[in-house]
């Protein structure tokens, strides 16, 4: 950058009486005029009003200002406005400096005009010190490859792929099995429509397989993913051979699997103790033997030591399957032993009530005294303490069905390592923010949906898939991502390669490659934690440089008298 004379313009806002009422604004203007590098200072009734903004633009031209300071309210609401005003007058927006003299001064020192005025002067002085060292910045634009990869060909992956493709983007759908469909392939009939699971899924599978924008890679394994948002380099393994392509965004829809209840309630020991998934299969194949009595046990392995969470969907799966058995055999005696029924929402509660009307019986057990399954001759015997009645119940039964939670599978764990995205305590993929970013990863450009995120039913998985497609579609439709110029940069000459900054970065934007620090600017969010860590001056944060902050500190204690 060429050495240029610093010419600062200072605009002090009265904000009606909001600032002017407790700060002697004219005195501050006089003071500002005498600060180093200040060539122009004025006051406005409302700097944010049209005439105030015009005054800024005129002064930039007239006084050849190359730094602008507005002292008024908070940058959190008004900085974008003043920045764009500067830009309109041809001044780089990073050469604008905001001084907050309302929220941080006039409004909190309303009865202390002298104190507030002195403080305002100092705040303006700090602003001038910082503005002097500001540098123009270019916001980085990263071109985005117009395609996406969806990992996992279950209902979530299928939906996400279809939505993106319908919007006109190329999609690579990667599935490790030979066929698409995922877990839904193995289910019998679905709630609430009663459709056959696979039948209902077929149109979606066909739409995806026949879509001109979608390339389906079944029986494929993900080998490597490099790069960052807009520019991911993907390597697949298909029949032992490598396939390479580039995508702009990635959606993780790798699903989950059923927990195997080994050692629970005689599972593996007695033939007629099965899981809900096994029951679905029997129903689907018409292989379920006529059962006059069935006992279902909920939360097997869940809400406890093995799996701490509630698996959300099992209560409804159990109720649905109990009702299907009742359809086949209306006289069947069915008990569901549960630890609170999760019939959340509108339809589920209705179904729960209907099940009770049909004569399916619900017994609440306590985790402290869980049911006990034994063999009594030819029949299974289930003992349970009914909390509500305070009695021990004895149920003879033909079939015991265990409702087990969905859990992460090994494939998911590997994908997490490969993409460097985190898993939570529950081993499911961990989103960027539990509340407001439920389908994003902290890493830009990678999204998640379906049971990879946690147990979910079909509609929930579909909603998540659409949401993930929204996130993944935004950079694709814009064609670029722009990054606020507050990212970090490294002076490699000064860098000693200690690498301590690498682990400090919450976004994995830093990496040591052959002893040299590399910054993936596209990943940097500008927190500056690495800069504070660096034992040398090698790392710097744009717009929050060490020297800028230091000058602010020094200016607090060094009055300038000219």
């Amino acid at each position: 950058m060429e050495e240029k004379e610093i010419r600062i313009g200072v605009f002090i806002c009265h904000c009606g009486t909001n600032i002017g009422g407790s700060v002697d604004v004219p005195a501050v203007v006089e003071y500002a005029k005498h600060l180093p590098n200040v060539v122009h200072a004025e006051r406005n009734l409302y700097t944010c009003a049209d005439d105030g903004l015009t005054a800024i633009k005129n002064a930039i031209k007239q006084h050849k200002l190359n730094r602008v300071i507005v002292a008024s309210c908070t940058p959190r609401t008004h900085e974008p406005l003043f920045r764009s005003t500067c830009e309109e007058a041809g001044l780089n927006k990073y050469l604008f400096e905001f001084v907050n003299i309302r929220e941080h001064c006039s409004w909190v020192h309303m009865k202390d005009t002298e104190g507030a005025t002195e403080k305002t002067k100092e705040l303006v002085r700090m602003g001038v010190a910082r503005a002097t060292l500001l540098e123009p910045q270019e916001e980085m634009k990263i071109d985005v490859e117009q395609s996406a990869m969806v990992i996992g060909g279950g209902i979530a992956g299928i939906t996400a792929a279809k939505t993106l493709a319908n919007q006109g983007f190329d999609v690579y759908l990667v599935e490790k099995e030979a066929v698409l469909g995922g877990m839904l392939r193995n289910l019998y009939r679905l709630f609430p429509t009663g459709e056959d699971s696979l039948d209902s899924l077929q149109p979606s599978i066909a739409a995806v397989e026949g879509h001109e924008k979608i390339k389906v890679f079944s029986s494929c394994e993900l080998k490597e993913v490099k790069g960052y948002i807009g520019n991911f380099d993907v390597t697949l393994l298909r029949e032992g051979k490598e396939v390479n392509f580039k995508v702009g965004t990635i959606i993780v829809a790798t699903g989950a699997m059923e927990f195997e209840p080994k050692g629970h309630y005689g599972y593996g020991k007695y033939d007629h103790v099965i899981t809900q998934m096994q029951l679905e299969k029997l129903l689907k194949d018409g292989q379920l033997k006529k059962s006059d009595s069935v006992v279902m046990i909920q939360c097997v392995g869940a809400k406890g030591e093995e799996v701490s969470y509630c698996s959300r969907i099992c209560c409804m799966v159990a109720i649905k399957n109990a009702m299907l058995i009742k359809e086949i055999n209306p006289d069947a005696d069915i008990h569901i032993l549960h630890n609170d029924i999760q019939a959340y929402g509108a339809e589920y509660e209705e179904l729960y009530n209907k099940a009770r009307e049909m004569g399916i019986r619900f017994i609440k057990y306590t985790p402290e005294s869980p049911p006990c399954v034994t063999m009594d001759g030819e029949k299974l015997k289930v003992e349970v303490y009914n909390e509500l009645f305070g009695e021990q119940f004895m149920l003879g039964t033909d079939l015991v069905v265990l409702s087990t939670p969905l859990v992460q599978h090994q494939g998911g764990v590997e994908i997490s390592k490969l993409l460097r995205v985190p898993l939570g305590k529950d081993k499911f993929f961990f989103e960027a923010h539990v509340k407001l970013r439920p389908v994003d990863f902290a890493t830009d450009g990678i999204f998640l949906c379906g049971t990879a995120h946690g147990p979910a039913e079909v509609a929930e998985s579909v909603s998540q898939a659409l949401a993930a497609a929204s996130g993944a579609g935004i950079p694709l439709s814009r064609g670029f991502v722009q990054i606020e110029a507050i990212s970090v940069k490294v002076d490699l000459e000064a860098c000693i390669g200690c690498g301590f900054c690498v682990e400090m970065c919450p976004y994995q934007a830093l990496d040591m490659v052959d002893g040299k620090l590399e910054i993936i600017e596209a990943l940097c969010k500008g927190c500056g934690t690495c800069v504070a860590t660096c034992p040398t001056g090698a790392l710097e944060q744009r717009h929050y440089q060490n020297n800028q902050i230091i000058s602010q500190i020094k200016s607090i204690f060094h009055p300038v008298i000219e």
Partner: protein
Amino acid sequence: MKEFDPKIVAFCCNWCSYAGADLAGVSRMQYPPNVRIIKVMCSGRIDPLFVLMSFLEGADAVLVTGCHIGDCHYIDANHKTKNRFEFLKEMIAELGIGEERLRLEWISATEGEKFADMVKETVEKIKKMGPSPLSPKVMQ
């Protein structure tokens, strides 16, 4: 002689504590005009060097503020702030300038009152303690 008027430097993060200071203003909570706020994007950016320098320049107290643990806008960058602060705390204690002169507070965007109270308390305390012995203005 003029009454001792402490100078306090406060480092605030853009997302929570700066917004908390804003809210104190919006709610017109009154506090003494002794604090000077320096805004950074994240409390993780606060290099302990800035704090040491503030004291050497003459700050009578330094406030390090950020989002509550778990609320950090940058995933967990404030964990690092907390860890580094432990170093500063020990350092200030060992130097013998009074541990109360350095304070770490997590202030959310709704805690305008907490911000105002923090400033009020600190000013009161520092007025009782007197100027920082590390300040260049104080003769020993």
